[in-house]
């Protein structure tokens, strides 16, 4: 594990812990956000029959860096009627919330921020911070559009947390643990052991579980999509109605924080979906490290597979965003309460029966 290694080098538990907690930020979130923004623009560009950014660097690969420099240099505009203290605090809170989620995400067999037993529940809990941050930002902006956007965001995130949690509980019932690392390990290598294909069990239970797990996956994917406010659920920041929702008034670095949090969140929910249903960091086809007998290669391969799965779901999110129109706020709520939650309940009960009886 990275922690032990850091402990050995620095000789101090605190330094090791701090370095380890900063690692995801610097080696993952920031580069990922840079990459994801570019990916988003390129994906949208090609879907819309155009090229996307082409000027900065080869095929525009440095575009995001140029944008970041622009954002840093920008004047930080604060309107006179804004509630200054909370206005400043809100982006930090939102970013802290999405960053905190990364602590429990197992990137590979050798690296997880904090291998706590509560893993998945902890991630759900810290999302509460994001909700509070969004409400705070919307209120402190002192702008009707921001406030409406914040209210919608909070209502939406809270509503969609219910189906997410129900599916999470279903998964916990099957795996018997809330630890994301253990869940990943449990799904062992090779794709037929993934939870979406019934997990590493055989017999009737596996066959019965497969359809349930596919539906569970769809439910949790849709509801996490709604939790990160992506199209078709991007009602809180629907630019054609609410300009850009709760971050209408933000500019410069504070806007960049919201932006960063949004992309970090996109990856976080993709990673959760990948971990719960697609074997987490496990390779679908076995490890090269095992074949050649090179043990240190395995964590790197695992990191590769994990990122690949996460990025795939990020790509799906972008794909949906540039294809679908957006729901209306009442339709969104109806979709959650009338379809997702009842289905999730039924699955919860069926899976309960299966795990007890078989």
């Amino acid at each position, binding site marked *: 594990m990275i922690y032990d290694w850091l402990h050995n080098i620095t000789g101090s538990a605190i330094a090791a812990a701090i370095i380890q907690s900063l690692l995801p930020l610097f080696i993952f979130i920031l580069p990922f956000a840079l990459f994801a923004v570019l990916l988003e623009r390129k994906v949208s560009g090609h879907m819309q029959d155009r090229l996307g950014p082409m000027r900065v660097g080869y095929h525009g690969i440095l575009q995001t860096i140029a944008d970041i420099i622009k954002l840093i240099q920008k004047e930080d505009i604060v309107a006179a009627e804004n509630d200054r203290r909370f206005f400043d605090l809100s982006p930090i809170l939102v970013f802290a919330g999405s960053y905190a989620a990364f602590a429990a995400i197992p990137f590979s067999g050798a690296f997880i921020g904090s291998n706590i*037993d509560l893993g998945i*529940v902890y991630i759900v809990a810290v999302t509460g911070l994001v909700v*509070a941050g969004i409400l705070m930002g919307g209120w402190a902006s002192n702008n009707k559009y921001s406030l409406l956007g914040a209210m919608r965001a909070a209502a939406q995130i*809270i509503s969609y947390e219910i189906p997410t949690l129900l599916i999470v509980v279903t998964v916990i019932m099957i795996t018997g643990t809330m630890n994301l690392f253990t869940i990943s390990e449990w799904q062992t290598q090779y794709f037929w052991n993934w939870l979406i294909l019934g997990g590493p069990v055989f017999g009737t239970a596996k066959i019965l579980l497969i359809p349930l797990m596919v539906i569970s996956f769809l439910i949790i994917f849709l509801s996490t999509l709604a939790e990160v406010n992506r199209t078709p659920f991007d009602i809180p920041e629907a630019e054609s109605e609410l300009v850009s929702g709760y971050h209408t008034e933000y500019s410069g670095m504070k806007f960049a924080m919201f932006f960063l949090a949004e992309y970090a969140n996109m990856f976080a929910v993709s990673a959760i979906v990948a971990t719960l249903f697609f074997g987490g960091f496990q390779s679908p086809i076995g490890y090269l490290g095992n074949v050649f007998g090179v043990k240190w290669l395995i964590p790197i391969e695992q990191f590769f597979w994990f990122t690949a799965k996460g990025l795939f779901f990020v790509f799906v999110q972008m794909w949906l965003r540039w294809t679908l129109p957006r729901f209306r706020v009442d339709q969104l709520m109806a979709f959650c309460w009338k379809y997702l939650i009842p289905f999730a309940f039924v699955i919860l009960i069926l899976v309960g029966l299966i795990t007890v009886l078989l």
Partner: protein
Amino acid sequence: MTTYDIIFYLFALVTLLSAFFVVTNRNIVHSAFYLLFTFFGVAGIYVMLGADFVAVVQLIVYVGGILILLLFGVMLTNKITNVDIKSGTIHALPASIVLGLFAGALAAAVLNTKWKIVASPETSSSTVSLGNMLINEYALIFELLGIVLLIALIGAASMARR
């Protein structure tokens, strides 16, 4: 003072300070936002006590649920766009007398109690034992609570529909 202590005092400070702001702030929305930090600090202290499950539940229920509900309530019932959502202080004198009495009683209790000091146990996850207790030992109470909550839910729904 160990690292553990420093972190503990940090959380305690956050909890107390934000609780102080909650009470003294004149703007209700501000108070509600400060409550967020109080809950957060309390969750931190739960973690220090080895009750990680309770801490997480504290965050989910209080920060994710009750606080948001509170904010919604405050924002929707007042003129939302104006900042002047104020709460004044009334009956300062009787309140301070009652408060003084209570504080004195508490202080006396704290000072007169013989505290048993034990070495802090190895922190380990409490989730498994908590689950076992809920299902085995306190199964009846657990089920009863569930039924009570269900009744409350049905009642709320029927009232909302009327």
